[in-house]
């Protein structure tokens, strides 16, 4: 590949005079010749072995770089170790400098860490568990800090940043409406379609409306919206706070005597807690609308009939179950997002890592929390 670029390929001409091996080097001894230089150097070593004396004449070398110089020196060293008396002769001054700079030395191989694969695996597992608990611990600490700082806002309400709150409600809530509406229409439609198809086998396809109503209002509406918000706004919070942390803006706030939690985190978390319930209502309505459309098209349930069946299937509490969960989900998303953002270190890689961690953790926590709510509502029979 590299060879077509060299006009002057490296060459070694070899002569044996008695027990002296004479090598005359010519051409370009540079890295651009790639394996050619290596091959030529190997020739020196293989031919020179067995001779009592070897002379490497580098006078006719046209160009030399550190790679070539290194190979000449290495060949010399290898011959010397084979018991040959080697001399490098005829170097031009500029080449001499290079040959000197690239003199042969043995580089110690990097220390390989010895270890048992099984032990390593358990160690890794242990580390994961410990990190998990540390995260939980840190999360609790952060929660405490947050609650304390928000409590302080209640004592001095004029310190609260209303403009910031409204700005973030617009960003997290209002700007999220189109995508939330779209995915919920689709999911509502998909649930309806599956419900109708599966229940049709029992001749109970009109119960699909019950399925749609309960599933969407209790679980899917709020869950999908939370997951979407974790991906859309939770990550944005982490990225914003993380880049502020990287550029020492957080530290600048601290030295001004301001609490970053009060100034930055509280408005964002509270905005999420306002935005998510509002988005959940929209999500519920859109998903029901999607279900209505599909039931109409697939099963011929007219909108009026759909609404009648829906009214019979759900109560006001079905709707509230979903809605009650929303602010808690928002709180968890906001807190995790802020915590990961503030945990960012100096580098861009660290920021990327924390944004990913923020999304993964908040989606995980949202689902866990939803599970707890399901148990709780079942226990109180709501």
């Amino acid at each position, binding site marked *: 590949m590299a060879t077509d670029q060299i006009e002057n390929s490296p060459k070694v001409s070899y002569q044996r005079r008695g027990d002296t091996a004479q090598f005359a080097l010519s051409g370009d001894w540079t890295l651009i010749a790639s394996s050619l230089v290596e091959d030529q150097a190997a020739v020196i070593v293989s031919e020179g072995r067995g001779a009592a004396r070897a002379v490497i004449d580098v006078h006719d070398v046209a160009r030399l770089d550190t790679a070539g110089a*290194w190979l000449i020196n290495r060949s010399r060293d290898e011959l010397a170790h084979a018991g040959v008396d080697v001399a490098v002769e005829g170097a031009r001054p500029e080449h001499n400098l290079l040959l000197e700079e690239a003199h042969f030395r043995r580089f110690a191989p990097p220390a390989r860490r010895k270890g048992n694969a099984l032990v390593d695996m358990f160690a890794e597992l242990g580390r994961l568990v410990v990190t998990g608990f540390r995260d939980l611990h840190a999360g609790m600490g952060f929660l405490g800090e947050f609650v304390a700082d928000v409590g302080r806002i209640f004592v001095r309400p004029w310190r609260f940043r209303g403009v910031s709150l409204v700005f973030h409600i617009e960003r997290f809530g209002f700007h999220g409406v189109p995508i939330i509406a779209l995915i919920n229409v689709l999911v509502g439609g998909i649930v309806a379609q599956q419900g109708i198809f599966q229940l049709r086998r029992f001749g109970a396809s009109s119960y699909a409306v019950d399925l749609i109503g309960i599933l969407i209002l209790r679980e899917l509406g709020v869950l999908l919206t939370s997951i979407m918000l974790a991906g859309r706004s939770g990550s944005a919070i982490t990225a914003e706070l993380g880049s502020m942390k990287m550029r020492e803006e957080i530290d600048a706030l601290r030295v001004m005597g301001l609490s970053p939690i009060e100034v930055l985190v509280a408005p964002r978390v509270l905005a999420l807690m306002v935005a998510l319930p509002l988005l959940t209502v929209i999500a519920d309505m859109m998903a029901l609308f999607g279900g209505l459309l599909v039931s109409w098209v697939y099963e011929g349930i007219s909108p009026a009939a759909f609404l009648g069946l829906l009214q019979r299937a759900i109560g006001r509490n079905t709707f509230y179950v979903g809605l009650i969960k929303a602010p808690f989900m928002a709180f968890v998303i906001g807190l995790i997002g802020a915590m990961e953002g503030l945990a960012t270190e100096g580098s861009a890689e660290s920021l990327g890592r924390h944004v990913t961690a923020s999304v993964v953790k908040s989606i995980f926590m949202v689902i866990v929390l939803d599970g707890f709510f399901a148990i709780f509502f079942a226990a109180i029979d709501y």
Partner: protein
Amino acid sequence: MNELRTTTNGAGAKHAPETVIRVRGLVVGFGDQVVVDDVDLDVYRGEVLGFVGGSGQGKTVLMRTILGLLDKRAGSIELFGKNRDSLPEEERHWLEQRWGVLFQNGALFSSQTVKQNIQMPMRENRDVSHRFMDELAMLKLELVGLPADAADKLPSELSGGMVKRAALARALSLDPELLFLDEPTSGLDPIGAAEFDELIATLQKTLGLTVFMVTHDLDSLYSICDRVAAIADGKVIAAGAMETMLASDHPWLHAYFHGVRGRRLTGALSQRKDETWKPAPVTR
């Protein structure tokens, strides 16, 4: 300084120096803004050219245009006597392997160890054995003055000065003839910066490099540059040896070399009783 120039120009001094970079009538701009306006610049083989200019005056833009990272609006750039625009893809690829670039923040690949970083250009562009690549990487590491145990570290585990050195080792990976340095001493402490200057000077001599150095650092200009070119408002306002720069009465150059920091260094220079140096004309 004179001493340095004769040694570095060594071979080239006998005949007319070969032009490694020849820029003619270069215009670069973004939108309505013209950053580099009709610039001519020559860099000769074997010299260290210091390229100075205030922030936002187009130093880095010019360098990035020469490297082909930015598009030009007009003008021509010749490297090693070849106009890059008219070269076929294949040849341009080869041309680009004759230079090494040290970016301001090192630009080491963060997911690779220092050794892998240094070997990257060899692995991609050359056909050499694993052993040879390892040896070359370690050799380069030693040339730039890094300890052997830095080889298996990730860039994030290195200090600022070590990152610069590792990045220099990577720039030297293919033994380039031409080395671009973008503010090599920025972010280093004065001792580290002086050491880095010295390193560049040593490498330039041993490897016979041509160096194009964008810099702010007056110390670097005095200690290692053979020639200096200055850019202001998108134009090269002066180019030549340090003496010409000091004698120039362009307001920016005057402020730069005869400001508080500059004076301190020129003072130091005059104490060395360098015969060719004349005191700058007193303008005020």
